[in-house]
């Protein structure tokens, strides 16, 4: 671990203390996890504390962990993952916040702290159905007007539910149930950790 990451971890421990659920360093990146209740406060500290000074929110996205790895369905399902950048100190940080309830996931909005979160939160709401209380204008953004469902959830089929076509009889564009079936050419495979390890077989 480089000295810079170490210093960042120390600063985080110092200023956030027990509000950090976990802190992890992997592949040269620091990831912290916070609870929904502490989320806003932590984010505010991350921006305003001069030693941290994360002045830019680079990215915010939803993740659906429901089919993750070998043991799917363990733990909470939805998370909002934020990538922060400090232009002042040249550091990056990843913040993950799991939504408490799976059937109505909600994570507080950080638009008041970083205005750039505006469209990112709209996107996460649109694609994953994560609600961001405190967001002033939480509309759908990428999907069609009048779209039903949240397409990036793992239980949403890749081909969707409806398709659109021009109907010559009614002389207008209509929606109908999809007529294509998704096919999987290469199956998804998660190998056990020792797979292909001929030395220790």
């Amino acid at each position, binding site marked *: 671990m480089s000295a810079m990451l170490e210093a960042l971890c120390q600063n985080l421990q110092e200023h956030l203390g027990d509000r950090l659920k976990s802190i992890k360093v*992997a*592949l*040269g*990146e620091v*990831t912290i996890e916070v609870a929904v209740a502490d989320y806003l406060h932590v984010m505010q500290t991350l921006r305003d504390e001069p030693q941290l000074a994360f*002045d*830019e*929110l*680079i*990215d915010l*996205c939803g*993740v*659906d962990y429901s089919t*993750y*790895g070998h043991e799917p369905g363990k733990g909470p399902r939805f998370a909002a*993952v934020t*990538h922060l950048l400090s*232009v002042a100190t*040249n550091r*990056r940080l*990843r913040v993950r916040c799991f939504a408490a309830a799976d059937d109505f996931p909600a994570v507080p909005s950080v638009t008041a702290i*970083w*205005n*750039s979160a*505006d*469209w990112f939160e709209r996107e996460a709401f649109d694609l994953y159905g994560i609600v961001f209380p405190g967001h002033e204008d939480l509309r*759908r*953004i*990428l*999907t*069609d007007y009048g779209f039903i469902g949240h*397409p*990036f959830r793992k239980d949403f089929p*890749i081909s969707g539910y409806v398709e659109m076509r021009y109907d010559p009889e009614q002389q207008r564009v209509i929606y109908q149930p999809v007529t294509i079936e*998704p096919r*999987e050419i*290469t199956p*998804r*495979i*998660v*190998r056990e*950790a020792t*797979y292909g390890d001929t030395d220790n077989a």
Partner: protein
Amino acid sequence: MPELRNFTLNFGPQHPAAHGVLRMVLELDGEVVVRADPHIGLLHRATEKLAETRTWIQSVPYMDRLDYMSMMCNEHAYCMAIERLLQIEVPIRAQYIRVMFDEITRILNHLLWVGCHGLDVGAMTMVLYAFREREDLVDAYEAVSGARMHAAYYRPGGVYRDLPDRMSQYQESKWKSAAQIRPFNEARSGSLLDFLDDFASRFPKLLDEYETLLTDNRIWKQRLVDVGIVTPERALQRGFSGPMLRGSGIAWDLRKKQPYEVYDRLDFDIPVGVTGDSYDRYLVRMEEMRQSNRILKQCIDWLRQNPGPVMSDNHKVAPPDREAMKSNMEELIHHFKLCTEGIHVPEGEVYSAVEHPKGEFGVYLVSDGANKPYRLKIRAPGYVHLSAMNEMARGHMLADVVTIIGSQDIVFGEIDR
């Protein structure tokens, strides 16, 4: 006294200055914009969801189609993310080739940008000149990958193949005699590097020509100066990056601040604006082209002197060469596994960002150890810049909206994903 109401106007999605499929609902008070509400998603293809159903390498061509004006830079961020998850080294020659093509891509993107931006605000000539130079650069794309736009040239572990020793040449036809095509073929008589060297020596002069057309042009300045001013504080708040951030006076460039590949070995400068208006962003981008040309030259010199492999020799990631595959059982198995099942990327998550011509293009990958990504998030710079549209356009005239869209340099492939 009649009741006065604001006028709501639909701008796009078929407006030529909307740069694709931007639908913007503008609320106008007379000719002044009160509120701008961009409606995006008309080009949404769910690239990120599709990538979850493909193997790691099958998604590389999807990356080209994100920002379809700077194809190889998108691939770069994606391949770099996979390489970091796998923790593999890319051969140094491949790194130089990537940097060289990143800079070619930057020139390609900025040329198209200056042409279209000129077209939007009334300078017809620019687009004709810009496309003349773009032609040479897309030929370089074609020479290495076979495709003029959607190259799929960068692969996890390196680049698909080494630079070619000869360029394709114009053929004599019944429309063009041998004497007519000879000048066109002169620069193409050598290798790709000779061709690019010729381009790099011509290009600064051509840039000077563009600048005489625009930089001090009275109409150009009237349309651009003091339009869409963004202060440094607001630029950070709105998550700006790339030329949009530098135009506002913040010297931030990932190539310098968080260097990746071989950028730390190259000599180049970062132009920074002062006022943060559209004119400053124009100047920044013009200077960036000059700097890219400098990097291009350095890469050409290095690549001439240093032959070597361009693909990782880790055959769990990169396929073995055909000859080895046909003669060696081990390599045959590797080839078979790679082509049927694909790479297995260890569990973990990574965010890798490159200095894309438009700003910071980031790829956030979550892997659970499968042969497909668990989650891919693409952080498109244009998405963030367009989200500041309301703030930038408010209080400006309707015609300035076109200037602001132009100076944001947006492409809908990446915004809608």
